[in-house]
């Protein structure tokens, strides 16, 4: 028993080091004044200044944020409907196909999702003339499609873990199903919807491959910009950008974690 717990402890230490050392190093090297990203040339914040003066980065970041907010909102609405349908509506016609279509986008290789959606958009354009230009709208649709799956799964598992008795009680007291959904079910699954929205938002900000397929000339998302730079090797301003993202995300997740701990003491 002793030996096995020592083994577990050392894998935990190794595993967490494996996950975090690369990120810490990116943060450290973002303050490197040397142009050669891997040689230490003293402390400096010049790359942060360069980043703020780079219009390409700012434009790409703005586009990415707009897409992420819009697609996460659509994904939350559609995904919540889908989660409710799967967890509460019993059997309906086409349920198997529906359940399959909900979970498949989560594991589908991105190259396939991206290619298939682009071909759809091209065909639609030939048929009805829409979308005339690929960019914000097509990327938003693509992101909504794969991230609604995650929202649906989160909402559905929340509903599955939740006792139906509250909803039944509300019905017994004369509440109509639609009112019960809005007055009882939705408030109860609100945390799951928030978690789903945040996940959808992150997935959208994270996506490179699908956006590369469905975007048109002139609309570059932040990951597309980063990829075009990173292809050429390690660069100090990308280190600075990565550091900002790492710090921002870590802070957000930490605050959310502390808030949820306070809300539900162990």
């Amino acid at each position, binding site marked *: 028993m002793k*030996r096995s717990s020592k083994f577990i402890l050392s894998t*935990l230490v190794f*595993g967490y080091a*494996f*996950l*975090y050392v*690369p*990120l810490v*190093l990116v943060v450290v090297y973002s303050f490197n004044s040397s142009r*050669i*990203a*891997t040689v230490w040339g003293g402390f400096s914040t010049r790359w942060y200044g360069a980043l703020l003066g780079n219009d390409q980065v700012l434009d790409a970041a703005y586009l990415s944020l707009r897409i992420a907010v819009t697609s996460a909102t659509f994904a939350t609405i*559609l995904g919540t*409907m*889908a989660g*409710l*349908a799967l967890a509460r*509506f019993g059997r*309906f016609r086409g349920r198997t196909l529906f359940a399959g*279509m909900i979970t498949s986008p989560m*594991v*589908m*290789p*991105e*190259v*396939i999702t991206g*290619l*298939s*959606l682009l*071909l*759809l958009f091209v*065909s639609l354009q030939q048929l009805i003339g829409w979308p005339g230009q690929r960019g914000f709208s097509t990327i938003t649709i693509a992101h909504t*499609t794969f991230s*609604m799956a995650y929202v*649906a799964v989160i909402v559905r598992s929340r509903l599955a*873990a939740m006792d139906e008795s509250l909803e039944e009680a509300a019905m017994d007291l004369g509440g*109509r*199903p*639609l009112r019960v959904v809005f007055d009882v079910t939705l408030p109860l699954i609100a945390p799951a919807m928030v978690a789903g929205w945040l996940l959808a938002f*992150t997935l959208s*900000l*994270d996506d*490179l*491959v699908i956006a590369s*397929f469905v975007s048109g000339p002139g609309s570059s998302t932040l*990951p597309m910009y*980063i990829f075009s730079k*990173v*292809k050429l*090797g*390690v660069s100090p301003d*990308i280190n600075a*950008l*990565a550091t900002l*993202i790492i710090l921002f*995300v870590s802070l*957000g*997740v*930490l605050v959310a*974690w502390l808030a949820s701990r306070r809300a539900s003491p162990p």
Partner: protein
Amino acid sequence: MNGVHAHRRDLLWQQVAVATPYLWLLLFFLVPFVIILKISLADPVIAQPPFTPAVGEDGRLGVSLDNFTFLLSDKLYAVTYLRSVLIAAIATILCLALGFPMAYGIARAREEVRSLLLLLIVLPFWISFLLRVYAWMGLMNSHGVINNLLLAIGVIDVPLKLMYTDFAVFIGLTYSYLPFMILPLYATLERMDPDLIEAAQDLGASPTRAFWDVTWPLARPGVIAGCLLVFIPAIGEYVIPYLLGGPEALLIGRVLFDEFFVNRDWPLASAVAVVLLLLLVIPIVMLQRNQAKDEEGVT
């Protein structure tokens, strides 16, 4: 009267709640696959869009299996598919080897530590995937941190070639997909009663035996889910092999991307996607079965 009206409205609402996401998925998930299939049966032409229509101007059906016979006859594609499956499989095993003891340790940790440990597993997932892969480029460069460190302590005299190798691809895949392995494993291990192992050991089973006879079978749904969640997306991975792998080591995601964007051969790219999808049908169905079984077990 009023009640009937209200009831009808509720039913209508339920139908809307099913139909809206249903139609969305039909249009933006299922129909695109039909289109891929259609275009994979066309021939490439220099036009906009660059493939022949399914029904020609003379009204004849323009369907050809040329792309598929080409894929099957050219050894390069077969080798690439095989390499992709192999590399994804090895990455899956690496994730399992590291992820299982980690998930086990987290599941057995004290309550107040456990949620922090889980948070630290999920946190990298929220940080851009691309930037996490990028972080390894700085580590594995010939002048990167690992080589500088090894040179400084005198283990090596010349920098190791770490970047642009299969080794780098394995590191990148394991690093990126590790959370997908740990989370489902944790979910099953956490449900497991630790008294069972103790009981097995009290009855004289060695720790190894107790592991293989008690822990492993109980963790199996998590192992299957974790492995498939890593294996399926890893097969089609594009970014990691592009940034960390060597240029000669082609993987199928890269081939598809290049056929489409570089060679502009849309029908062949579609055919590559169709074959990849056929390879993935079995693991995807397995995953959904496993998930359905797991849900039945919970509720």
